[in-house]
């Protein structure tokens, strides 16, 4: 629609815009909380996750002379802004999931983010016991466990060769 991907064909529609796609899938598969208020909390949490995720996603595109500074910023934000916020949420209610005592997209997206941060620096999660526990718990859910295994459709981090290909295709 806006000359961009991702695009997902589902239920007779061609969906674009990452958030719109995620919102649709989460609603359809009951991973979006039980009411508008739970949804608002979930949205607030995942928007924060998206901000950090975007910084990590764009790291391969950073010019070499700016890369160290970018990595330092990612580490700082992770340690001082994002991980403390989610650890605090889990501590505040003591439940197994971020929202409504039930699995939601917030838990899935947080664990995805935890794996990505681990790829940047595995030591960053060291002082966040509840995040560590959530990561283990969610990773053991059968569907997630399967996705984390080799042979699934999960994609590896981008490498230099794939980045060059992408640059050619998308002309950037």
């Amino acid at each position, binding site marked *: 629609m806006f000359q961009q991907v991702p695009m997902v064909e589902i239920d007779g529609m061609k969906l674009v815009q990452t958030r719109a796609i995620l919102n649709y899938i989460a609603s359809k598969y009951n991973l979006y909380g039980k009411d508008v208020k739970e949804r*608002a909390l979930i949205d607030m949490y995942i928007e924060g996750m998206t901000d950090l995720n975007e910084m990590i996603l764009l790291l391969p595109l950073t010019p070499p002379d700016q890369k160290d500074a970018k990595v330092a910023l990612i580490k700082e934000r992770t340690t001082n802004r994002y991980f403390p916020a989610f650890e605090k949420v889990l501590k505040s209610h003591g439940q197994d999931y971020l929202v409504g005592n039930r699995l939601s997209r917030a838990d899935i997206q947080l664990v995805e983010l935890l794996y990505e941060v681990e790829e940047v620096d595995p030591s960053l999660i060291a002082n966040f016991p509840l995040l560590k526990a959530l990561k283990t718990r969610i990773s053991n859910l059968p569907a997630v466990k399967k996705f984390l295994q080799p042979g699934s459709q999960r994609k590896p981090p981008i490498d230099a060769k794939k980045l060059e290909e992408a640059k050619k295709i998308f002309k950037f």
Partner: protein
Amino acid sequence: MAAKPKLYYFPGRGRMESIRWLLAAAGVEFEEELFETREQYEKVQKDGRLLFGQVPLVEIDGMALTQTRAILSYLAAKYDFYGKDLKERVRIDMYTDGTLDLMFPIMASPFQPPKEKEEGLASAVKKAKTRYFPVYEKILKNHGEDFLVGNKFSWADIQLLEAILMVEEMNASVLSDFPLLKAFKARISSIPTIKKFLQPGSQRKQPPDSHYVELVKNILQI
């Protein structure tokens, strides 16, 4: 009686403006705390109401909501601007994500060095003309209805109007090739709650000037 929603932000548009538009369109009165000093801002930060230490913050229905899109989605659902079912909602999500993608770089540009600012604004106008406005023109053409989704006034319409006005402030003739968008603009602008918001004296904020940019930079220490 429920308390009015309360908005916490700087005295300008930024990321709070889309929220103001939505509340105004719903005819909902709201209060604002506008940060003029770093002390005011730090007080809100220290209160622990800012989940990620950032504004916008909206206090509504007993919640301290941050993250622009989370707030907008909540308000859209609350005031029945989010379509009648999941399929209409996903279309509204796609369209509003598009307009936010168009508007955010424009909002960010005053805070950039002069050269990047010029380039950013020029790029935004170009994207409006070649990527975004053609899409919305086509949507209106395809169904021939007055509103973008479901033949009913929604968040998508409110935000498209906001985006059109924002781009027009940089390039007054940007709608010259889009007759349906021109008609759309006139139509939505004359909805009573929107008309009221567009008049002087409303809580609509001005485009950022150098004073605003300095204020924000001081408060955020950037």
